[in-house]
Each structure stands twice: as C-alpha cells, then as structure tokens.
C-alpha cells in the first residue's frame, strides 16, 4: 500500500513524464491551488505552459477542530495545468489514476457537471467533478476567464483532492488515519495545526488587526497598480509582488469571514474589492507579458 507521500511522488512523476514542470507549493496562504501564481497568472496570455504542484490550501471556515474525519481547515491539492489542453487530456488524466494504483476496470468512473467560479478572482471555467465509486476525487476545469479576461489558450486544470484519494486507496475512514510516511499517520503530521488554527480562526483571531492588515495590503496593491499605469519601464515592474498582496487580502477576507466579522452588507463589497485587485494585477501581468514579447520580437 502506498503512503500519502508515495501517491504524491507517483502523481508528480506521472505529470513530469508528460512534460510538466514540477513546481513546489506557493509560499503564501491560498484557498486553492488555482490562486497560486503558477495557475492564476500563467493561464493568461498566449504562451503554452505545463505545470504540476502540490498546494496546501487553507479554508478557515472549513476547520472542524480536527474532530470531523473528512473536513479540514487545510488540505493538500495536487494541481495540474495543461495549457493549451491536449486533445487526449481525459485519457491522460485517467492514466494518472492507473498510475497511482487504481484499476479502472474494477471501479466506476463518472464525469458529473460541475462548473467552477471564483468571484474574488474574476475567474470561471466549465468542467466536472470526477466521481470514483461515488467519491469526488478530482475537479476538472476548462478555464474560460481569469482576472476578468477571456483566455487566449484554454488550459485544463486538474485538481486532485489528495486526502480523499489516499483515504480511498488506503481504505481508511478518517483522513487522520492516513499513513503519510511509513510509521507516521496524517494525524501526527497535521492534527495539531487543525486544532490550533480552528481555535484561532473561529475564536481568537484579532478582528481589528485583520481589518488593518487587509487594508494595508489593499492599499499596497492599489499603489503598485497606479505606479504600473504611469511607468514606462513595465518589464521590470513588480507585478508579482503586487499579486502576493492580493493573495494576502484574499486570505484575510477568508479569516474575517470564518471569524464571523463580515456582515451581510459588507460581504459583497469586500469580494468586489478583492476582485478589483485581482483583475487589476491580472491585467498588468498580461500587459507586461505582451510588452516582453514585443521587446523580444
């Protein structure tokens, strides 16, 4: 039986063999692998790209103090971006399941409609949740728009829910019983942060401080975007750091939301504020990429 890490190794190997760059997780808090710049920014523009990475994804509101066997504040996604989408993308995906030891002829696979949308990123796509014997194991999305822009090349995004898949492979009832490495259970590696972050996110996070942080990051993005607009020297301009601040805003919003600090009237407004930042940065990034191509031409 493969451990949690074995399965990750195999998936990474599988996609590396199909031309993907194997990236490491992005080193900021994100709610999903989609938000990492390797997806959010790389899907923009006309340059082909293939990448796979594990992304620890934090969703403060999903925390359950480590008491629910299936729900986690932070779960691990394995994210694959294939831009543009190869024609045999689904066959490649099914091959990846075989690669981690699922004999598809002995199981039931269904592709059920599930379209993805992220209002905070101005992004949406069309796709499926992939069901294996009734268990959702993957989100498969054809990106259509990102940062409010139609995409030049349509990428396929394949997001594996690693805990679910491995719990299935190891036939355990609780994610905490997953064997992460020989002799080490998931609970030994991760239970403490599930507990502590649930306590912090739901009960102790300092709301005024979070708001202050949110506003500081927002102002920094706004400042940078304004400078980008007027600068002639676009190529060296720090668009990527601006995006980091957007990610901070997004995570702080999730924290405030979990903390119950966002009222009805505020909520829609805050989402719009984050989207404005994300769309602004995406636009700047696209412009920067274009100016680079022109310079190269």
């Amino acid at each position, binding site marked *: 039986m493969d451990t949690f890490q074995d399965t990750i190794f195999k998936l990474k190997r599988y996609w590396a063999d199909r031309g993907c760059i194997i990236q490491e997780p992005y080193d900021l808090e994100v709610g999903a692998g989609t938000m990492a710049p390797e997806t959010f920014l790389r899907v923009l523009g006309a340059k082909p790209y293939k990448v796979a990475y594990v992304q620890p994804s934090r969703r403060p509101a999903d925390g359950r103090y480590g008491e629910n066997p299936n729900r986690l504040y932070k779960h691990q996604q394995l994210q694959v971006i294939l831009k543009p*989408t190869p*024609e045999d993308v689904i066959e490649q995906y099914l091959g990846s399941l075989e690669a981690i030891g699922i004999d598809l*002829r002995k199981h*039931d696979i269904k*592709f059920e409609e599930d379209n993805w949308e992220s209002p905070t990123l101005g992004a949406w*796509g069309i796709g499926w949740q992939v069901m294996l014997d009734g268990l959702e194991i993957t989100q498969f999305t054809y990106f259509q728009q990102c940062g409010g822009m139609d995409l030049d090349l349509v990428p396929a995004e394949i997001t594996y829910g690693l805990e679910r898949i491995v719990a299935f492979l190891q*036939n355990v009832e609780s994610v905490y019983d997953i064997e992460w490495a020989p002799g080490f259970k998931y609970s030994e590696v991760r239970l403490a942060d599930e507990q502590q972050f649930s306590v912090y996110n739901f009960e102790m996070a300092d709301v005024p401080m979070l708001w202050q942080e949110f506003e500081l990051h927002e102002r920094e993005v706004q400042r940078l975007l304004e400078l980008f607009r007027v600068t002639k020297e676009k190529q060296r301009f720090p668009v990527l750091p601006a995006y980091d601040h957007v990610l901070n805003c997004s995570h702080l919003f999730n924290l405030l939301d979990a903390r119950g600090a966002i*009222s*009805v009237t505020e909520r829609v407004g805050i989402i719009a504020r984050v989207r404005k930042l994300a769309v602004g940065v995406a636009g700047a990034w696209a412009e920067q990429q274009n100016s680079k191509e022109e310079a190269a031409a």
Partner: protein
Amino acid sequence: MAYFLLEIGAEEIPDWMIEPALEDLRIRFQAAFAAFGGSALITEATPRRLVLLAKDLNEKAPDVESVFQGPYISAGAKAAEGFARKCGIEVDRLAKMQDAKGERYVFHQLTKGQPLAAALSEKLPEIIAGIHFPKSMYWTGKGGVRFIRPIRWILALLDDQVIPFEVAGVKSGNTTRGHRILGPKHPIPVTIENYDEQVLPANFVIVHAGERKRRIEAGLGPDVHKDADLLRTLVYLTEFPTPIRGSFDPSFLELPQEILSTVMRHHQRYFSVIKEDGSLAPEFVAVTNTNADPDGLIRQGNERVLRARFNDARFFWKVDQQKKLSARLPDLEKVTFQAKLGSYKDKTERVVKLASSLAAQTGADANTVEVAALLCKCDLTTDMVKEFTDLQGVVGGLYAKAQGEDDAVATAIYDHYKPVGMDDSIPRTLEGQIVSIADKLDTLRECFKIGMAPTGSKDPFALRRAAQGVVKILFEARLELPLFPLIEDVPPLGAFIKERIQFYLREVLGFAYDEVNAVLAAPLTTIPDLADRADAIHYIRPTADFEPLAASFKRIKNILVQAGAEGPMMIRADLLTAGPERELYEATGRVLSSIQHRPYRDQLASIASLRPGVDLFFDKILVNDPDPAIRQNRLALLYSLLTEFSTIADFSEIVTS
C-alpha cells in the same frame, strides 16, 4: 434513397442538457435538409455522443425552376436588352408569353438541386456548431467554436461513404469510440448497419436511451423507491449502466428519513429502498457506468462514501441541537437574503407581520402562524442546511419538533417552501399555507420593488415559481383571501401575478384563453372565486343563448365607446318606450334580483336568458334617436346592462364564432 448517420463525439455532456440538445439538432437538421425528403429522423444520445440517423433521403434535391417576368415586347429593344443582361443571356434566348396586356419576355431559370453529399458537407459544420446549449465553452483558443464540451470525434456516413467536413479542427470520419474504460483506446470503424446493434454494444456503449433505461429498471427491484427524475439523470450519466445494491449501518436510521434520502438522492444519486411498512430500509441502489463489480470494490467504495456522508449528517444534527432555533434568530442578520434587500432577519420581520395579518383574515391560529413565521428561516444558520440546502424548511420543521415546539408550528415550518413546483403538494395545514404565502409574497414584493422582475428565461430568484405557488395554494386550499390588495403598492407585480393566474387557469385548470380573459377583465377577487367564475363560463358556454349574448355585449361596448358614454348614468323609466325597450329594462331588473346569492352557473344561465330580449331590442329600437334625451336614456339602459352583468366576467372578451 440514402441513409445518413451522424455521431458527434464529445467529452461528457451534462445529463440535463442532452435531450434539449438532441431536439435542437433534429430541428436544425430537418430545416436544413427538408428538400431531400426522408422517411424518419432518429436521434439518440449518451453523455459522450449525440447521434442522428436520417432514413430514405433523396440523393439530390429537386431542381427548382423560377420564372422571371420581363418587359412587354412593345416596350422596345432597350428594355428587352436590359432584362436579358440582368438574366445573363442574350435577348434571342429569352422566352415569350402572352398575357392580358400583350406579349412579354420571360426568363426561366433552372436551379439544379444540390446533391445530398455536397449539401451535408457544406451545412453540417454550421448545424453542429449552432446547437444551442444553456452554457457553452470554447477550447481551441479565443474566438473558437463553442460547444457544451470539447468535440473529440465526428462520425458522418452517407450509406458507406464518409461525408467530409471539419468542426473545431476535428475531421469527420467513419469511426466511433467505445466505452471510456471498457472499450479499446483506439477509434473503431463502423458502418450504418453495424453501428448501434453490434459495434457499440460490443464495446460497452448502449446508444439507445430507452435501452439504458430498461437496463437500469431491470436491476432496481420492486422495493426501490420510484424516482423518474433520478432515473433519467442516470440514463444520461452512463453509457453502460449497471445497478448495484449496497447497504448501510441500520443505526443511521435514527436520523430523519428526509435527511437520509436527500443524502442518497441529491448527493450520491442513489435510489432508496423501502421496507414493506413504507419506512426506509438500510440499503441503496447505485447505478454504475460499467459492466460489473466482480470484486465488490464499487459497492464497498460507495458504502464507504455514504457512511462518511451519514456520519456528517449525524454530526450536524448533534451540533445543531446545541442551539435552539429561537436562539438562532439574531444570527439571521448575517445571512444575506439579497444584497440590496438585506438579511434574513429583515425578511423574517416582514414575513411575521404579513403572515399575522393574513392569519387574521383567514381564521388561521394566530399564535401558530406567528411562531412559525418567526422561526421558519432559522434553519438557514444550521450546519445541516448549510450542507443540504435543498432541505431548507424541512430541517427547520424537524428541529422545531425535536426541540419541543408545538406540532402545528413544526408542520408549518416544515411545509413552508411548498409547493416547490407545479407537481408538488401545498402545505398540509392552514397555518403552513399562510406562512408559505407570506414568505413568497414577501420575496415577490421586495424583488419587484427594486426592479428585479424576471426577464425572458432569466428568473434567478424563481419569482415565477413563487407566484405560481401562491396561486396554487390559494386555489387548492380555497382561501378566500383577496390577493391584489396585498400587492397594490407594487404596481408591476399586479400584472405579473395576473399572468400567473392566467397561466394557472389555462394550463392547470384547462379553461380556454378567452374564458380566462373574460374573467380577469372583471373584478379581480380571490383565486377560488376567479376559478369558479371561469368554471361557470365554461359550463354555460355551449348553451344556445350564451355566445350570441356575448356578441351582443361586444356590440353594446362598441356603441358605448363610440357614443363616448361613461358612467354612472341614470335610466329614466318615464322615457322608456313600451315594447322591446321597456321589456328589456324590466327583464334586466328581474334577472338582477333573481341572481342574488345564486351560484355562478345559475347566474350565468339567468343572464343568458336575456338574449331574446336583447336581440329584439337591437332589432326594433334605434339607439341613436333624434331626441337627445331618449338617446341618452337608451345608452343608459345599455350601460346598466353591461355593468350590472359584467361582474362575473367581461363577456365581450369571449371570442364568438
């Protein structure tokens, strides 16, 4: 005569879009190739293929001859040359014909009918790319073809010949594909003869939806809860359906049945199994998209997922009981009803007020209605509803009961989303009906106030359904509750509700459109009253006197409009002439006093009996008398006839033959 087979191979199409897409394909094909005849057009589909088979097509469209008439020969050579130039031939090749005015040039143009193969090649790309889907995507790059999911292959055979064309970079050919897992990885060549009955089944694809349905039904068993919608979903989620049966720990049966079946149906697409006593058995049937489960792995997997889901539900139930519904009221402030309309707390306050006033008008128990209205949205803050949103209301009802609220309150909360569709039943109790009406009316009122009326097919807040639900409750429960005074401060809503009443009377109760219009042009009272009036018209309509009388009413209306006569008008008895005029006046009075408090059918029968008198009046009496006083008096008589008898219906709306 030729057969044409088209298979559009796509990645998995959402189940609910397949039938409409097939119908659209059929219509487009029919329109484009009508000239080629054909004896049958058959469509079939699986999630991965839309299939069309046209039988007995002519191999060539008929030649079409068009005749263009040119100038008369007498118009001279110049005119003739001009016409010939336009037709692209020499003057001496133009034909001539004789008509009443003389001899003229004519041009017979013969358009050769297009060969079928060429027409198919030319038109199919556009037909395929034009199939309408509620939500489509592009995949070949910005500006590329849009379809529901990427097209991966196209099979296009005219008898044994490939019709060549290309859509989104995919070239048509003579191959299909088998089942994703059970079929081979490579394309499979087919012919029209062996396509659906040999090649596809041999590669684990059942292309006929009806056959997949039978295959599922055969595996369900008599103890499985019938569910036509779920069955249809599964028919279009699978290419080779095989039902399997699994079980779950009977201890989960302590959870309410509603929750268990929702988890099974909506989240896992399982059929539930019913015991002989009607209660839920600890079993389920899942429909797989494969041929067998030899090692029981699929069953075990599904059981494991269901166990986790049920454990979640049990966990939610326990956690939710720690805070009573009434203690959740303040939390509703944090639940958005609609961005511009504030929170569910605001909504609750409005609904309580409205429901209480409706209770007072209908004799519903005031306390039950008030408590139910107050608590009905509180389940929105529970973990159970956050997880199983379709159980809104139901969970509230179950929790209210578990927490010791009055049974009547629990039932009213449980039912207050009902009816969720035209086929659903209305709330069981008067109190539930009142809360449901108040909730829906509030949504309608508030949305219309901020201009969010549904447009076309866009109705994000399901306002049509809400209005239809209100009408259905009022009719089926026979609540004599005047609806229009409740919405008179929101003018556009009046017209909207009227449309829904019209729809209900016509489509659900089956009255003719003019009968419905006649009733709705008369005073808008209560829904049961409107329905009774429509029923009376429908009943009396076939009788001999009714339609002629209706025609006379139309005439009266026109006369009054033309004369500019507006009420109120007094009839002076002393100015009435003896004979038909006075007789009509007296008959009117007699009928009026006789129909008081009579059922509508009787009233209409009496009114219809006025017909001979009215006919005679028009026959013998000139309304437009030279004496203005007499003329005015006759108009007043007609006016009174029209208004007195138009309270049931405006007869002039009746379309008479």
